[in-house]
């Protein structure tokens, strides 16, 4: 442990040193930008007053001199106030006023125009009032008129009007009236009429949750007016989570959004499902849109394109869940849309923020398998021979036991190979963000460096990122925006998961513990074996000396030009580019070898390079118009997008030696390459209409043309409509003071899916060579059964929801029900091989997801101790309604056969195998039950599912369900004085996991090391063990190849996803300064023993979810961080 710690701190310092260069570069940017800052924009009004028996008018004069505030009052009122004696230093105006005036008798109104109005309380008035006419103008804080503002009289609701299109109003009121101005999204304001007849009112934005601005497709909307199913999350809530990429931060945060970390590979992808999996063949990954730019992203265990984005640059994230919200993305919206918005500069503000964290990742023992020690392994080998002798009715002869195993106790613990391959690994992040802005130009610039070393040795992820978001007003009504985000990522990967032929972590589990890691001279023991066990390569040697590196340069560029032609009409055109250049470099030297294939083996290498260019042009027109009680927003647009990826790959074999690793040194090279292109052309339109803030209607349509489909079916139309009704605004709705807002909403729409291969509809010619005359003869074949009439997969979704806000926004509750039918699924189906093809792609089938989602936000306490809770829970039910003529689809994870089955009437991807009903304990039992020829007492009793008296492949059946009953997440945030604490808990209930790795780790042949549970196997009628694992003397293949139902485990868990404790310093030299400690993936409370309960070997494949075939462990991460702002 000490050694590991030392190594960690060394690396950490090195990383810090390296990043100093980076910081230097960033400082240069800061210096340029801060000089433009607009200092002293608004001075806090502080008053120092020392008077004795001074008349009130004189006191007010003093205050006016110091602050510039004017006082308005009826003379008679001031006369009632006795002379003032007071002594205050640096006191705020309201504090001072409260000290001077008795608030039981007087109302003090602070107006926007630096005017303080003083009037007597209504109760203390006596004079009758007369009707007068007042008029005025209502503007927002930027001086723009606000139409439709409600103007009423405080004591008489029957008197009132609304402002006109220019924000003007006129109203007859009692002379002593108080005017109340209310408008959706703005703070309510009251003004005493007094002597004034002409009012200039400035309404301030209301910043409560209901008025939060929600980013939606091609625009934004206040939360109050959102009538689709949209979940949002703000940077402030997720800023301290020490994770590699933004998708990891979504875990447990939103109802209906399931985020699973299927593998712990640094920089690897997350499996995200919005409202379940709907597609059998065309992918279930949501669409990611960064600053309006839909980027190419699909799940990959090793390479997550989102990991090239610096999570510190993200301002907020919206997830569009229902078809009404996502249909504006047409053919790509079917699996939900994740909108990512990066930070922007703001006018009048200049800030510099540094953030830094460093930490340690650790694999808790509870997340690794319990394998046999050397002593246990040897004992098992001895027992095997004892059992075999008994089985063959021969006396046990100790000489049959290899000499090495005869005294197991002497072998001790042996080598714990998994421990050798893993480590406590450091992780660190540095980021600096600068914002600055004037009326004309607003800028945000950031630079980040992130370094995560993997808990598996020789793996890790590094990212260098820069971003510059700029917005400038070129001329009146003409705004130009430019976002530039280059990044460089470096991944060190290992082939760690899956079948032992390749997965080095699996190899580590299976390699005999009766061995040495290193030889006496300190070099790696090249061939690891012990009696009975396979002769294998040394997994640590393989891991440390195999190079698998991936380097990626990416530039994301967004530009736009916005022209506000008229106050109601604007035109925006944007051009976006995503450019990626990737290199993947592999070298395996001759001295490492492979499993069951020990060294020396000729060295092999691989070099892949790819260049991807994706560009998008969008042109939209927006029209906004309000008149009387009507408000209309209309959007029309036209977009073009295309992508081209050129990939080349060279595999080199037969290197003469290990001296040169580059591909040119290989004697034999096999080239490969491809060009992948797609194009998309779209028209889109949306109209939102609001009447009296009560009724909200919205309609969307997008028409997409995609190059991926046959010429007959290129165009698809995706309409949607939604309706919202703010019940709480209705006259008949009882006035409940605690209830702020109640809204009912419903939507229905169609979204599509085009996530099939780029050329699937085109029959292609591929190479398939032969030889004549002992030389190569080029041959070609038709490589697939093409389908020219291939069309869109579409999903029809109905969503019904309710939003409730209580106690002045302190409690917000959302409930939603949805049902989503994915139809005409694009799927590759098995077809009779007599066609010459085993598979063909077609539009077929129907999968339904329906479910409930509930989210709650509660500000529990608001005093010195602030406590806020977010809670969400979602229930999704998946059901296959139709898969065409087939009865079932059997899908496997690579290397493990058909592990999952999809059938009509059942959820997708259930576990598939044999029902194990314990062991045959007696000869009589063996006779009584159907069994496989040759089975003996002590072997597994499989259920004869079809009841035909024979155990064969037809007895495979559903043995488990990988889908959870519900998932949930809860965040509790506490603020007490300078401390803040946040605790994120998330969980899943009811899902099962298939421990397919047990095919190896409980292999009874003796060729592998095995789990300790093998000690409880069947040995004899007297020692039947736990009744699950069978005897080693016969039919060991059955226990391994006939996937038994006892490999299915309960995968329910409750995770302590994140805990962060922070302390805020008040300093003279900083705007803010905070230090915090954070723990990520700290604890999984679960009965699951196989490690990560979110594991899924096939990752994003919805037909084979939940299979554990060993995986890169998910570490617990503990970090310490500092945020510093000036």
């Amino acid at each position, binding site marked *: 442990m000490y050694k590991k710690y030392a190594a960690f701190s060394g690396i950490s310092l090195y990383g810090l040193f390296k990043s100093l260069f980076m910081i230097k570069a960033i400082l240069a940017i800061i210096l340029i930008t801060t000089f433009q800052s607009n200092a002293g924009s608004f001075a806090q009004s502080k008053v120092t007053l020392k008077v004795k028996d001074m008349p009130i008018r004189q006191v007010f004069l003093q205050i006016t001199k110091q602050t510039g505030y004017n006082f308005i009052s009826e003379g008679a009122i001031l006369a009632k106030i006795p002379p003032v004696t007071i002594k205050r230093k640096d006191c705020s105006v309201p504090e001072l006023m409260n000290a001077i005036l008795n608030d039981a008798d007087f109302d003090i109104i602070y107006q926007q125009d630096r005017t303080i109005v003083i009037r007597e309380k209504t109760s203390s008035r006596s004079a009758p009032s007369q009707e007068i006419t007042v008029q005025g103008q209502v503007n927002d804080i930027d001086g723009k008129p606000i139409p439709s503002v409600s103007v009423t009289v405080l004591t008489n609701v029957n008197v009132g009007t609304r402002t006109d299109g220019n924000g003007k109003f006129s109203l007859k009121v009692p002379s002593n009236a108080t005017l109340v101005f209310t408008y959706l999204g703005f703070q309510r304001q009251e003004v005493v009429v007094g002597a004034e007849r002409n009012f200039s009112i400035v309404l301030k934005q209301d910043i409560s949750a209901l008025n939060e601005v929600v980013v939606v497709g091609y625009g934004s909307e206040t939360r109050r007016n959102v009538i689709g199913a949209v979940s949002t999350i703000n940077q402030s809530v997720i800023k301290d989570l020490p994770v590699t990429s933004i998708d990891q931060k979504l875990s447990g945060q939103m109802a209906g959004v399931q985020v699973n970390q299927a593998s712990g590979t640094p920089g690897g992808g997350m499996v995200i499902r919005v409202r379940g999996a709907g597609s059998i063949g065309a992918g279930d990954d949501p669409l990611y849109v960064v600053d309006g730019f839909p980027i190419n992203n699909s799940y990959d265990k090793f390479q997550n394109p989102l990991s090239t984005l610096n999570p510190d640059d993200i301002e907020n994230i919206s997830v569009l869940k229902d078809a009404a919200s996502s249909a504006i993305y047409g053919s790509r919206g079917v699996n939900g849309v994740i909108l990512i918005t990066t930070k922007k500069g703001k006018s009048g503000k200049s800030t510099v923020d540094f953030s830094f964290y460093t930490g340690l990742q650790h694999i808790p023992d509870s997340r690794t398998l319990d394998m046999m020690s050397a002593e246990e392994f040897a004992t098992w080998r001895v027992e095997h021979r004892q059992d075999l002798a008994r089985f063959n009715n021969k006396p046990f002869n100790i000489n049959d036991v290899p000499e090495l195993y005869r005294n197991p106790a002497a072998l001790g613990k042996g080598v714990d190979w998994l421990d050798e391959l893993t480590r406590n690994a450091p992780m660190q992040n540095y980021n600096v963000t600068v914002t600055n802005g004037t009326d004309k130009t607003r800028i945000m610039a950031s630079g980040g460096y992130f370094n995560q070393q993997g808990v598996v040795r020789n793996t890790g992820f590094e990212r260098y990122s820069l971003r510059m978001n700029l917005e400038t007003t070129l001329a009146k009504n003409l705004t130009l925006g430019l976002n530039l985000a280059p990044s460089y990522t470096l991944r060190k990967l290992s082939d760690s998961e899956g079948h032992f032929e390749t997965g080095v972590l699996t190899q580590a589990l299976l390699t005999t513990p009766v061995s040495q890691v290193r030889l006496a001279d300190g070099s790696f023991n090249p061939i690891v074996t012990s009696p009975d066990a396979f002769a294998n390569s040394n997994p640590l040697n393989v891991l440390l000396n195999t190079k698998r590196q991936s380097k990626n340069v990416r530039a994301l560029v967004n530009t736009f030009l916005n022209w506000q032609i008229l106050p109601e009409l604007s035109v925006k055109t944007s051009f976006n580019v995503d450019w990626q250049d990737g290199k993947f470099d592999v070298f395996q030297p001759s001295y490492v070898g492979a499993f069951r294939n020990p060294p020396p083996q000729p060295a092999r290498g691989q070099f892949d390079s790819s260049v991807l260019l994706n560009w998008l042009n969008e042109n939209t027109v927006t029209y906004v118009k309000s008149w009387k009680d009507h408000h209309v927003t209309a959007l029309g647009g036209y977009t073009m997008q295309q992508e081209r990826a050129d990939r080349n790959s060279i595999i080199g074999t037969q290197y003469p030696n290990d001296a040169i690793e580059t591909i040119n040194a290989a004697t034999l090279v096999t080239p490969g390459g491809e060009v992948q292109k*797609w194009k998309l052309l779209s028209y889109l339109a949306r109209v939102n209409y609001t009447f009296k803030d009560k009724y909200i209607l919205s309609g969307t349509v997008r028409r997409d043309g995609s190059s991926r489909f046959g010429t007959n079916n290129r165009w698809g139309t995706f309409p949607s409509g939604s309706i919202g009704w703010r019940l709480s605004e209705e006259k008949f709705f009882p006035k409940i003071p605690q209830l702020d807002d109640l809204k009912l909403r419903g939507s229905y729409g169609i979204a599509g899916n085009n996530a099939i291969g780029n050329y699937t509809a085109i029959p292609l010619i591929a190479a398939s060579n032969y030889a004549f005359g002992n030389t190569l003869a080029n041959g070609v074949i038709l490589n697939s059964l093409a389908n020219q009439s291939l069309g869109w997969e579409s999903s029809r979704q109905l969503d019904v929801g309710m939003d409730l806000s209580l106690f002045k926004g302190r409690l917000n509750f959302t409930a939603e029900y949805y049902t989503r039918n994915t139809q005409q699924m694009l799927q590759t189906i098995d077809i009779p091989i007599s066609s010459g093809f085993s598979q063909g792609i077609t539009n077929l089938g129907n999968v339904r997801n329906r479910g409930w989602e509930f989210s709650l936000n509660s500000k529990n306490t608001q005093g010195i101790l602030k406590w806020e809770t977010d809670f969400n829970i979602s229930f999704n039910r998946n059901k296959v309604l139709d898969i065409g003529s087939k009865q079932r689809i059997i899908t496997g994870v690579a290397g493990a056969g058909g592990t999952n089955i999809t059938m009509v009437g059942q959820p997708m991807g259930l576990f598939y195998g044999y029902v194990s009903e314990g062991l045959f304990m007696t000869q009589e039992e063996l006779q009584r039950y159907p069994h496989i020829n040759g089975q003996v007492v002590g072997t597994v009793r499989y259920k004869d599912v079809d009841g035909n008296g024979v155990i064969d*492949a037809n007895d495979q059946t559903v043995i488990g369900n990988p889908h959870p009953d519900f998932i949930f997440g809860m965040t509790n945030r506490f603020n007490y004085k300078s401390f803040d604490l946040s605790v994120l808990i998330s969980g899943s209930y009811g899902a099962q996991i298939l421990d397919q790795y047990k095919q190896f780790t409980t292999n009874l042949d003796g060729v592998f090391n095995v789990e300790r549970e093998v000690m409880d196997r069947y040995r004899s009628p007297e020692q039947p063990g736990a009744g699950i694992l069978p005897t080693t003397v016969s039919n060991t293949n059955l226990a391994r190849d006939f996937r038994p139902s006892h490999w299915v485990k309960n995968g329910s868990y409750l995770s302590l996803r994140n805990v962060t404790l922070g302390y805020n310093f008040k300093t003279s030299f900083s705007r803010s300064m905070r230090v915090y400690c954070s723990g990520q993936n700290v604890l999984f409370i679960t009965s699951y023993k196989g490690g990560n309960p979110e594991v899924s070997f096939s990752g994003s494949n919805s037909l084979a979810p939940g299979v554990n075939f060993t995986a890169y462990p998910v570490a617990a991460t503990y970090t310490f961080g500092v945020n510093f702002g000036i």
Partner: protein
Amino acid sequence: MNTSKIKYILIFLASLTVSCQKEYLNTDPEYLQNAKNFFKTKEDFVQAVNGAYAPLRPVFTDSFWQLGEMRSDNTAFQYNTGDRSALGREQIDQFLELDDNSFVYSFFSNSFIGIGRCNVIINRYAPDKINDENAAKQIIGQASFLRAYYYFNLVQLFGELPLVLSEISSTSDAFAQAKRRPVNEVYDAIIKDAKMAIENLPQRYTSANDLGRVTSVAARMLLAKVYMVQKQFNPAMEQLNLILQSGRALNANYSDNFNSTAKNSVESIFEVQFLEGPYSMSSNFMYTFAPYNAGTSITGFGLYTGADSGWNIPTADLIAQYEAGDQRLDKSISRTFTDPVTRQVVPYIIKYKSPHAVRYQTNDNFPVYRFADALLMAAESLNEIGYVTGGQAFELLNRVRSRAGLPALTAQNVTTQEAFRTAVWHERQIELAFENHRWLDLLRTGQAENVMKAHSVREKASKSFIPAAGYSTIRPLFQYPRREVLLLE
């Protein structure tokens, strides 16, 4: 801003949207040819034909030796206690395989993939585009031969089959044509294809670069075999006579048939072509057929640990069949390897053992039809037509025996039609051992049940690991693959 200006702007934006839409969405892959633009020239068709040969390689490396030899009394396997992962192969040997046996399915699927490729060529065959009469004839001839050959193997091993003779155009078409047809319909189609091939193919290719392509002689072999299965010995003899006059001859040395440096010899009529080097077209029979504990001693490069080796091991029954002095024994089987663990001699096949440069990549072709086979077929057919004391049948049979260093059979020691029949069957077992003929011969000659029952008694007596149920039902056909049954349910 006045409204007319706005109007212009909107018109401008609208005009952007309608320009050049049609062309924009056309996206042809650059790195692969599109079938729409293919099958336009002679070269296109020649390459497509080459592609139709390619499935022969997996058929022979992955599975045919299990179905053709291990299924019979000729070979078995070395029981691997440590690695039981290839149980499916053992089950084929012991008549215990299930209907989802992956090795059986590999044979079935690769054969149909080959048929599918032939169908594409035959469907799109356009002599006018090929614009070369000879080339056009060779193209249709080869495609017809290959389709017949794939089908002939399948129908003998599986019985009733879907008979797909045109290119499948859609997934629904694939289902529509998957219904199994009676065996006689399949044979009719095979005969038709074989005749088509005979009509169009040359007896010999002039270019060395065409060596290994099927000829009219190969097609006649195929047709003769079909007739013999159907017990039509006169038409069979008609074809065989033409083969005997085709200029083919026996190699002086039996081993030359398996020499990787002298492929496609004068005796060869049809052999599957393998090629070592960076083409992924090499064979690896010697690795598969080597005892699994042999390490580097046999192949020179070492074996993968586990169940990749120790297969197609000659049985004691077969070795006992070799007559004293038969030179073919030591040219076919090595009996020099002693297993270091069991200390027992494990015999293994050496027909496909040759020097090679890269591990698991050998250059050995695999014989399908050779002249010795034709001689024995003719001898058998003549005998079936009518036993003639000391007739031509004796002469044909003795040509094969004399090369093996064995004395000629004469009317003195083979006195009846029945005795001659037994003698020629025996000769076929030895001469063509490990060339995937044995099981098909046992089926064709109706000996399967008797031979295998007797064989199983001897096998079980010497091998304790054979399950009791092994060999209990000598099924003449393999079960129709489960996947195909389920798809059509």
